């Protein structure tokens, strides 16, 4: 695991500040997230970890009162610069949400939704859908009922469908916002396995409130507390020898 | 990408212009209404329009007095409110607090039927059923009276009052009612000491909207109130024919030469009517918004 120390930085965040109206929700966050690895963001609820995650694909733009300062470079490009197209950015930076949110359409239409809109040829769609479902570890379970409604799947299957839907757009980065918080342990472990599989090809950032999960899946961990990023390092180091008192308190379960 | 952004911008502008049409329509409505109404005051002073007690638009000399029509509208609306508000609120309380859900599910759509019946059908019903009934049972010279209009308008306002009051009563938190019941109050004491006061602002919004609906109603009153433009007494005026502002416009617009003083007088009445309902709307909306936040 320690081999990815020398890995290239994919996402470079510098002095990121965020306000919701008058509420200063993120203070001077700086972090370098390495390529092809899993970075976990942990911290008590309300610490700003999800808010931070949503800065990386500019989903916070949708909140009218939200104001952001600072730089976020992905693959060397500042995503908050004027000539960045947010729509293109979100193609490159996919997101999986807390609650599985498949569209009320068939399984096939869910996965082909993105590629179709982005101009994939009709004849290529079958292949894209199959590949995405295979990478999403769902193909075996649904290959015989692609036309049935996605809403009939179980919660865990729905979440894997959402991952497949994201993969079908061929992003570089995938953001996971507490992807297992609504799922049972078995589904959770399937998704964790999937995340480990996916990091070969993608850079992954995952928000989780479950510290075991962070320990199981991530290479690096960042600890957030009331809008500050307190500590960032390799996962073993954060869990075994945290530098900050508050990190240790959180990890040993003294608050949060 | 530039193409795509252009398309997005284009669509957003199209949507924006559609949405702004509502504002433009309201704006134009004010302009056209007021500008045609204001011409009247070239020949008739504003004070005489407001204080003249006679509406003789075609007599010689002409009288364009708003007063009998305004008072006609007021007396019919007042009657409607007296009739429909207690009834509507009582029905709303019953539906939301007492009724078996099964019964409520039948009663609610039935009251909604009242909202669907066209006003001209109410007017027709009033004319052929209620008018002769009232004339006979009260021994009146004519059954076409302010009271007849009030009853019909009251029935028409019921669905508005019931549904909004019911919403207001339903939004009273359960804990409030349980608190009262736990203190040993009866269900009825809880309803009139806790639930209804807590829902009061919502209920008053319902009453305001009901008034707005009643004052603007045209066909029904026109068909059942007899339409004589005299200043009604109170309460004796309830049992005599009256004429409302709305009925005057609908009755006379067909006969007047366009551009005459009479024509403009009808627009002036329309302006008064519009301003009245506008104010009622604003108040109702204000009350509604306030109670939504306070709960």
């Amino acid at each position, binding site marked *: 695991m320690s081999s990815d120390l020398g890995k290239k930085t994919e996402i470079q965040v510098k002095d990121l500040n965020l306000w919701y109206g008058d509420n200063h929700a993120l203070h001077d966050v700086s972090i370098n997230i390495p390529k092809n690895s899993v970075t976990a963001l942990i911290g008590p609820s309300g610490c700003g970890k999800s808010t931070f995650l949503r800065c990386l694909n500019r989903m916070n733009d949708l909140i009218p009162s939200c104001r952001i300062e600072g730089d976020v470079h992905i693959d060397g490009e500042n995503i908050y610069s004027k000539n960045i197209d947010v729509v293109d950015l979100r193609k490159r930076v996919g997101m999986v949400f807390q609650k599985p949110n498949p569209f*009320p359409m068939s399984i096939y239409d869910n996965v082909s939704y993105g590629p179709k809109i982005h101009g994939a040829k009709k004849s290529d769609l079958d292949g894209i859908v199959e590949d995405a479902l295979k990478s999403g570890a769902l193909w075996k379970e649904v290959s015989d009922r692609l036309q049935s409604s996605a809403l009939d799947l179980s919660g865990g299957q729905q979440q894997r469908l959402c991952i497949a839907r994201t993969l079908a757009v061929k992003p570089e980065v995938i953001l996971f916002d507490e992807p297992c918080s609504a799922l049972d342990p078995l589904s959770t472990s399937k998704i964790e396995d999937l995340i480990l599989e996916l990091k070969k090809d993608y850079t992954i950032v995952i928000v989780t409130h479950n510290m075991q999960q962070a320990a199981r899946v991530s290479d690096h961990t960042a600890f957030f507390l009331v809008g500050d990023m307190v500590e960032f390092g390799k996962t073993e180091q954060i869990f075994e020898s945290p530098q900050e008192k508050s990190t240790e308190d959180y990890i040993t379960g003294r608050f949060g | 990408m530039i193409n795509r952004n252009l398309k997005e911008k284009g669509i957003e502008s199209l949507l924006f212009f559609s949405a702004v049409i509502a504002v433009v329509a309201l704006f134009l409505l004010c302009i056209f209404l007021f500008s045609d109404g204001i011409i009247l005051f070239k020949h008739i002073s504003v004070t005489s329009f407001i204080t003249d007690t006679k509406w003789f638009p075609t007599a010689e000399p002409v009288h364009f007095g708003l007063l009998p029509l305004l008072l006609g509208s007021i007396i019919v609306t007042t009657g409607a409110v007296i009739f429909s508000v207690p009834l509507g609120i009582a029905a709303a309380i019953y539906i939301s607090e*007492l009724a078996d859900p099964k019964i409520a599910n039948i009663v609610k759509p039935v009251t909604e039927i009242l909202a669907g019946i066209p006003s001209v059908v109410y007017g027709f019903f009033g004319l052929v059923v209620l008018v002769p009934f009232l004339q006979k049972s009260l021994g009146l010279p004519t059954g076409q009276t302010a009271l007849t209009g009030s009853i019909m308008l009251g029935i028409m306002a019921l669905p508005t009052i019931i549904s909004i009051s019911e919403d207001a009563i339903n939004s009273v938190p359960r804990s409030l009612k349980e608190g009262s019941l736990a203190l040993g109050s009866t269900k009825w004491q809880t309803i009139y000491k806790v639930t209804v006061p807590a829902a009061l602002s919502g209920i008053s919004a319902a009453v305001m909207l009901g008034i707005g609906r009643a004052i603007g109603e045209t066909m029904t009153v026109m068909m059942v109130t007899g339409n004589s433009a005299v200043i009604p007494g109170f309460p004796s005026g309830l049992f005599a024919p009256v004429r409302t502002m709305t009925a005057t416009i609908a009755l006379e617009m067909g006969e007047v030469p366009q551009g005459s003083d009479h024509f403009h007088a009808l627009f002036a009445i329309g302006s008064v009517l519009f301003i009245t309902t506008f104010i009622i709307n604003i108040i109702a909306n204000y009350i509604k918004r306030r109670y939504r936040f306070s709960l």
Partner: protein
Amino acid sequence: MFSNAKTNEKIAFAMLRLAVLAVVAFVCIILYYIISNGLSAISLEFITEMPRNRMTEGGIYPAIMGTIYLIIGSMAFAMPLGILSAIYVNEYAKPSKTTWAIEMAIINLAGTPSVVFGLFGLALFVKYLGFGPSILSASLTLGLLILPVIIRASQEALITVPKEYREASLALGVTKWETTRRVVLPAAIPGMITGAILSIGRVAGETAPILLTGAAYFLPRLPNSIYSQFMALPYHLYVLATSGTNIAQTRPLQYGTALILLIIVLSVNIIAVVFRNHYRKKLSR
């Protein structure tokens, strides 16, 4: 003291029950009178023939057709406009003075009396724009009248579409309009159509606005263009009941017309409710 409270409660509840019974009784009495008296007047001839003998005999065919023209005309105008407005207000607009103005305009248009709409239609469409008393003027006037109804219904339909659908689509790098068109609208369309159907009932029943913008007392033939005057069911009923020839003698015709009008309006309402429930079930699955 205790038994006193109990007695009060009994009396109060009895009165509440009485109130509901009264409301239900009103509905039943009105429906009973119109249906029982109107049924015998209705026949195939009644709905397919022209009025004869100064409207004391024959059918109400032109009035039915006129009402249908008005429905088509006003819906063609108000439905697209209302849906697009609702999309703007709910999906695009950020809180600002403009959106506040739009909201206020919708609220106040909704509360403006229909006779005032009639005056406005007369001043703007009939006179100023020179459309004359016509199907066009009346349709546009009625269209404005139902515009707030359609906007409101469409807004409510849009609000029920879960925020998650929009986020999921946007996060896939799909533009706002494509998201709206492919994810939000398909889920909201049933609600929007329900609102539109309900406003058909409104158009069919309104009298005062068309009285001022082009409804005719009697026409010997059907209108031949959108600039023609027209007959319409509600106005026809008003005319027969208040200023026709031989009012007492034509009572059956009046009841028949009222019943046809009632059937149109109520069946439209029922269709809307059934349609809504059907789709609500489908969506909640």
